[in-house]
């Protein structure tokens, strides 16, 4: 007799709890109504890539010494280094260099290990093409300067979270010259130099 009463009361309690939780959930979704959309209207607005962004790789042909370190550190030995040994100069002579960005995972090992810094990361990430073979960049394509969001008059560049002033969450309508939270790298260097002196 009492057991069934307990069962009934437990069940009622559970139902009330369920209703309470649904109410809490509804208040959370309702709160979202007043938040600003985080949408970036992509072709018209673009986020500025961060300093350490790993985009398409830039290659400087004249700096390369054909050492093939990039090939060895690459997880899949992707860069193709085509060189010939010049017996008179006793030097390797680079003829072609290419990286297939359809296969590259942008890990950045090649950039990290290149002894002459002829490889570098760019902020370019729009690599879409109709044919995957177009993604196989030769040394000419690799040597092109990257497209910059901030230089495109058709695009409104937006700062990412880390580059907004303290307490600001909205990259639209930023005041001109507003700085990001914390110190900039050059400020840190200056402070250190002052300390030494």
């Amino acid at each position, binding site marked *: 007799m009492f057991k069934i009463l307990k069962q009934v009361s437990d069940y009622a309690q559970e*139902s009330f709890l369920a209703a309470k939780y*649904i109410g809490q*959930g*509804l208040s*959370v*979704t*309702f709160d*979202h*109504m007043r*938040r*600003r*959309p*985080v*949408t970036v209207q992509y072709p018209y607005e673009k986020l500025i890539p961060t300093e350490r962004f790993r985009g398409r790789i830039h290659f400087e042909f004249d700096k390369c010494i054909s050492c093939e370190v990039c090939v060895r550190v690459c997880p899949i030995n992707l860069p193709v280094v085509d060189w010939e040994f010049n017996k008179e100069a006793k030097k390797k002579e680079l003829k072609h260099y290419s990286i297939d960005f359809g296969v590259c995972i942008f890990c950045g090992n090649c950039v990290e290990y290149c002894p002459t810094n002829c490889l570098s990361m760019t902020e370019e990430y729009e690599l879409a093409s109709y044919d995957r073979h177009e993604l196989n960049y030769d040394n000419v394509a690799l040597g092109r300067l990257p497209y910059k969001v901030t230089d495109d008059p058709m695009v409104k560049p937006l700062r990412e979270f880390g580059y907004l002033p303290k307490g600001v969450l909205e990259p639209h309508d930023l005041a001109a010259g507003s700085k990001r939270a914390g110190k900039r790298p050059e400020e840190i260097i200056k402070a250190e130099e002052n300390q030494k002196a």
Partner: protein
Amino acid sequence: MVRAILAPSKRPNKHLAWQMNTGIDLQGNFLQTLKDIGLPAGVAKALWIPLPLFLMLVTATVGVLVVVWLERKISAAAQQRIGPEYAGPLGVLQPVADGVKLVFKEDTLSSKSDRWLFTLGPVVVVIPVFLSYLIVPFGQNLVITDLNVGIFLWIALSSITPIGLLMSGYASNNKYSLLGGLRAAAQSISYEIPLAFAVLAIVMMSNSLSTIDIVQQQSGYGVLGWNIWRQPVGFIIFWIAALAECERLPFDLPEAEEELVAGYQTEYSGMKFALFYLGSYVNLVLSALIFAILYLGGWESPIPIEKLAGLLGVGETTPWLQAIAAAIGITMTVLKAYLLVFLAILMRWTVPRVRIDQLLNLGWKFLLPVSLVNLLLTAALKLTFPFAFGG
């Protein structure tokens, strides 16, 4: 918008006390005008008949466009997106664009499907939903027909829908569709019973099945007189069951995209799919309207207009007051309905979909006994406090 009560004498006498003024009689005026021009009475009547029907069809369709836009915008807001933006101001033309796209799409028919059932399915789903608008009142006289079995007609018509769903699911010759159709049938049948019980409790308090009488029984005290206070359990049961009947999100198993592709809609495209789409949204608006009528006082505003007019010394039969009251009535009904639609959309992004066993457990083991107890309790309260519970 409409009209309908043939004459005040058609109503039972006891309502005449509330109903001192009959409000605006659009039909009477229309017929009188035509007769004055010199048309015979029969012709005038025949000219009138299609008008409210056509108006209701347009109202329902426009209502759907608004709901589709609301659904997209509110969903976007709940996810901190923008939603449709470029089709018209604030994207209001997006549902029109969707509709036009569906009209021009190819009407596909899968091989080995049953052509007749496949075509009939969406029709059987859509027609009862539109027919149910017959009994939705937007004001004292703003209803197509004041049937004395009004709310029962809605329950009866809504139980035709699962047949159409099962039909289209079975005829599609596709396992997903069949499963979706079966789920739809199981769900509709099990949630119809608590729904009917919740409605029955209201009917018991109003002593009438007519939607007009149900609203009038709640009138006079503004927000305090609404049935939501007298049926605190009933309205929750009704809302849950109505969501299940509309296949809205916590209960959208029949078309669960992740499991069943699109359930019974899998094989449909073009206009046939558009009919399902239209039907589901019309049904949502209809359920919200019925909820507003049953529990939120229909066209009554939170502050009773008649009382306010009485305080200001304006007679009840003043023409401009009647026009304003009718306008406020329509606004109130629509406002309440859209508030409920908003709640349904918010619910969609708050609660996860239930499993089929949870769905049936909730329907048979929770809603059914609770609604029965609610019905008995209402009966007991009606006998004990006849003044407050419509004795």
